[in-house]
């Protein structure tokens, strides 16, 4: 092998292995969602998480990849059915790049299922999750990673590994879905708010550890190359530091606020830190990462309280707060903490402005299309299971199969 070939082998290896770690996040999401919901819906939630990846795999190949990376306008790529067009950066096989992008697309879809857990019809879930991977995610993804308008601004929008592209988009869709669906029976009764504890925190915690591991694929892998090993190493450190800081922040805050340190919330705090650092993991210092993670860990608590108690939008696993709010927050923080161009480093408000534009336009897209999508599904095929099915558990009625026997 010559040097160029070897470099290509190494980079391909890199994105495939990190892609495999991102794939494994599917298991992490499945466990977190199953652990944070009730045992009568466990089969259902596992099935959803399995199937959105299966369907997403086929759908992203069918049209998603083309829409996202195809050469089109600033707003839309191209329809390339069963894409064989090469969109990979030089030196990387198209299929490696495709695989890497695919696992990201599936993540966006999976996020939604948590917020809508325990009451959504299975068939409707399959439909909307397919639409997300096939169309919704690729469109806004095109704007940012596919050469679209947000990447063409004079100060380009910076979302390195997808705080906005993946997470906040998923979060906004989750928001509209949970809103239109309404809360679970028993969550709000006679003006009171009831906690509906998840059935297995151990499984939820294992899910978080798996997600954390997966993030070492998600963020560093987004370099798509090992040509800059320092950068890759920095990303490992910033990613890890933000997660840790998020966990510590939530630990402290819940202790102060509720008198006792809460595990369920701290698990969210770790994820909040991870989501928030994703946009700027390449651009901030370890110190910056700790601050971003710490703030995200604080923010997620207030955000969960807000949606639970003020907005009364029932989100069993906190997906809206973790992915939507902290994703948006982390993207904005790039405008503050980026060593190159951030406000705190003398870069002025330019980058921050661009980041805000990006965050807002993806929010508008996600919320707008989400409202249309979920209303349409609600009216065409129904979005929610019957009261009886919900009360007795989706596992019985939707699948005839309980998870625990």
């Amino acid at each position, binding site marked *: 092998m010559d040097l160029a070939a070897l470099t290509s082998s190494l980079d391909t290896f890199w994105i495939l292995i990190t892609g495999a770690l991102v794939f494994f996040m599917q298991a992490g999401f499945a466990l977190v969602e199953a652990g944070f919901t009730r045992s009568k819906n466990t089969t259902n939630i596992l099935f959803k998480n399995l199937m959105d990846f299966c369907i997403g795999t086929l759908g992203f190949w069918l049209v998603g990849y083309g829409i996202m990376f195809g050469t089109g306008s600033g707003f839309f790529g191209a329809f390339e059915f069963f894409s064989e067009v090469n969109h990979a950066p030089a030196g990387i096989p198209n299929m490696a790049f495709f695989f890497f992008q695919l696992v990201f697309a599936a993540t966006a879809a999976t996020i939604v299922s948590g917020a809508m857990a325990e009451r959504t019809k299975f068939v409707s879930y399959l439909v909307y999750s397919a639409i997300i991977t096939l169309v919704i995610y690729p469109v806004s993804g095109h704007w940012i990673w596919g050469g679209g308008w947000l990447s063409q601004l004079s100060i380009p929008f910076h979302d390195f590994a997808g705080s906005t592209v993946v997470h906040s988009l998923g979060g906004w869709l989750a928001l509209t879905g949970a809103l239109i669906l309404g809360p679970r029976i*028993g969550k709000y009764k006679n003006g009171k708010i009831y906690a509906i504890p998840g059935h297995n925190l151990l499984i939820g915690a294992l899910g978080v550890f798996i997600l954390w591991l997966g993030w070492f694929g998600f963020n560093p892998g987004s370099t798509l190359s090992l040509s800059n090993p320092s950068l890759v190493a920095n990303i490992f450190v910033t990613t890890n530091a933000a997660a840790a800081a998020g966990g510590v922040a939530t630990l402290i805050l819940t202790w102060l606020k509720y008198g006792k340190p809460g595990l369920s919330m701290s698990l969210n705090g770790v994820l909040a830190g991870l989501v928030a650092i994703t946009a700027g993991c390449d651009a901030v210092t370890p110190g910056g990462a700790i601050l971003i993670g710490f703030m995200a860990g604080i923010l997620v608590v207030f955000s969960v309280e807000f949606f639970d108690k003020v907005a009364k939008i029932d989100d069993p696993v906190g997906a809206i707060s973790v992915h939507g709010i902290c994703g948006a927050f982390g993207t904005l923080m790039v405008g503050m903490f980026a060593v190159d161009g951030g406000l705190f480093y003398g870069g002025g408000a330019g980058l921050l402005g661009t980041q805000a534009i990006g965050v807002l336009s993806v929010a508008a897209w996600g919320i707008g299309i989400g409202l249309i999508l979920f209303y349409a599904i609600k009216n065409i095929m129904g979005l929610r299971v019957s009261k*009886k099915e919900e*009360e*007795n558990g989706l596992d*019985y009625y939707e*699948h*005839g*199969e*309980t998870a625990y026997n």
Partner: protein
Amino acid sequence: MKKIEAIIRKSVFDEVLEALHEVGIDFLTYYDVTGVGNEKAGAIYRATVYETRLIERRAITFVCRDQFVEAATDAIVKAAQTGEMGDGKIFISTIDESVRIRTGEKGPESLYIK
């Protein structure tokens, strides 16, 4: 003193608890059981479709003074009735003696709130 045991659907548990509270029953013990009765459920496991009569239920039991029995029974029936097969049963029996462990006191007294 009477002991009231009710086998109900898990999904009506909260309602039953509230209904009992309204008629003054604030103490009880419950646990999850499996019931065999009129109701059947279709189930699938791997390639086998089967009908099961084993369905999850919740058993509620409490001991109360005799004068509470009727109100409590009515409350349960009202809260737990869906009208479909499988709503469950209430059984009432006699308790000879009751002891509050905390104080050692015996008899119906031991059932009061203190």
